């Protein structure tokens, strides 16, 4: 089993020093997602700017290295970007994770996220990697419906 493919240095770095962690104001939507199987949880807030860019994504997450690192990488990738681009990145990450290791990640789109390519070969960990991404999408869609 290729553990090092799963636990890439980039992932362990993000795990030890997660970016954008903690819950912050302002925000238009807050969601709480759980992985019912293992109990991993994330509370996540999204703040959208008036110009349609992602102003902030803040979160409080409890979970394994993969889920924590994934939240950290995700915030790096979406904060400051136009929401539509952020959602494209979400789609690319989802495709990578569901690809059973057959999808070649695009570094231009996913940046540090390509480190998760190895996770796609561990079906039981895919949910961990997706937890915060799913929460972001959910919150972003809700935030769009709210007056900024």
């Amino acid at each position, binding site marked *: 089993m290729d553990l090092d493919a799963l636990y890439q240095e980039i992932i362990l770095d993000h795990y030890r020093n997660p970016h954008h962690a903690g819950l912050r104001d302002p925000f238009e939507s807050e969601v709480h997602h*759980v992985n019912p*199987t293992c109990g991993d949880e994330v509370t996540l807030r999204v703040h959208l700017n008036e110009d349609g860019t992602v102003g902030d994504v803040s979160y409080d997450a409890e979970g394994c290295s993969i889920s924590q690192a994934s939240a950290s990488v995700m915030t790096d990738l979406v904060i400051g970007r136009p929401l539509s681009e952020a959602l494209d990145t979400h789609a690319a990450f989802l495709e990578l994770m569901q690809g059973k290791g057959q999808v070649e990640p695009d570094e231009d789109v996913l940046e540090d996220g390509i480190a998760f390519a190895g996770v796609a070969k561990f*079906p*039981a960990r895919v949910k961990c990697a997706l937890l915060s991404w799913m929460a972001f999408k959910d919150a972003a869609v809700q935030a769009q419906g709210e007056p900024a």
Partner: protein
Amino acid sequence: MSAGALLPDLEVIRKDFPILERTLEGGFPLVYLDSANTSQKPQVVIDAMVDHLERHNANIARAMHQLGAESTEAFEGARDKVATFLNAPSRDEVIFTKNASEALNLVARTFPLGPGDRVVITEMEHHSNIVPWQLACERSGASLDWFGIAEDGTLDLSRIDELLSPGTKVVALTWVSNMLGTINPVAEIARRAHEIGAVVVLDASQAAPHLPVDVQAVDADFVAFTGHKVTGPTGIGVLWGRTELLNALPPFLGGGEMIATVSMEKSTWAPIPHKFEAGTPPIVEAVGLGAAIDYISHVGLDAIHAHEVAITAHLLDGLASVSGVRVLGPLDAAHRGGAVSFELAGVHPHDVAQLLDSRGIAVRAGHHCAKPAHKRFGVQSSTRASSYLYTTPAEIDALIDGLEYTKNYFKVG
């Protein structure tokens, strides 16, 4: 409907079913004509289960080790197969239950009903599609009404305007009758039911083994069937439902993996299908069901149905040749399923079944869990012969011979 044609490789198919080599008391080979009760199992189904138990056994989802991943993949793979088999829009709409009865109870227990609402069933339902609705109506104050049965065994649609009128919230009916063999016009009834905003629950227990079951083509809202009648094992059934309906229903059984989170004060629910799968699911049974679906899909449901029509035609001809036999249900093989119930004048069904059994011929005698339909025809019980993809014309001939022997034994006719 379809024209009959025996399966061309019938002898090869029979070799897939180890039990068909059994001989019974007196050295008689097994003539199994009780497939509407439960089907026999091909070797591939048994082997898939054995392989799972010997090499991949683990609990699913919750287990994140290699065996757990293998077991989860096998289990969830079976869900994919069922979704394809039913042409379901989404795999998450496929819920594994313990049998068709639990699937029907799940809907009847959770579907919101109240005083003034009406549930419509039919007089030809299996008890598993009657009793849950009686209990639901008793609990909720809703009323129960039903389509009767015409003399020829088809559904009596004369009251359809009255039955399918505002106030009716649920129309629950069998696709194919397990007693009469009748194939009901389910797509037409679904169309009419939807006009008045009712949901349609189809009991496909007898349809799934024999006909292509396409939930979208018939525009059903819920569909139930059972593993052991489609060459799969006991201990597993399926409820398919539309996503938006399943999402709206409250949970049925609580526990295990159906939760999102649990505290002592309050719990929340997992998304479908898990919301309805409390506790350890039937894992090795799903593996067996998946193999069964592969098997019958490989033979082809159209080919299986054509075989059923051919065998049923031969059976109906044979029965017509025995004086004193009265068939209950439609007489045209091209427009009915393969379960054929009949009376033999002067001999009680138990005694018919006993005499046939003494010659290795297995049929069912009794009310076949369809007491109201029996009552409709003024009988308390009947003898039922039912075929499947492994049934041969020679087995039907053995049955007909057996009936003549029975008449002789009891000195009737």
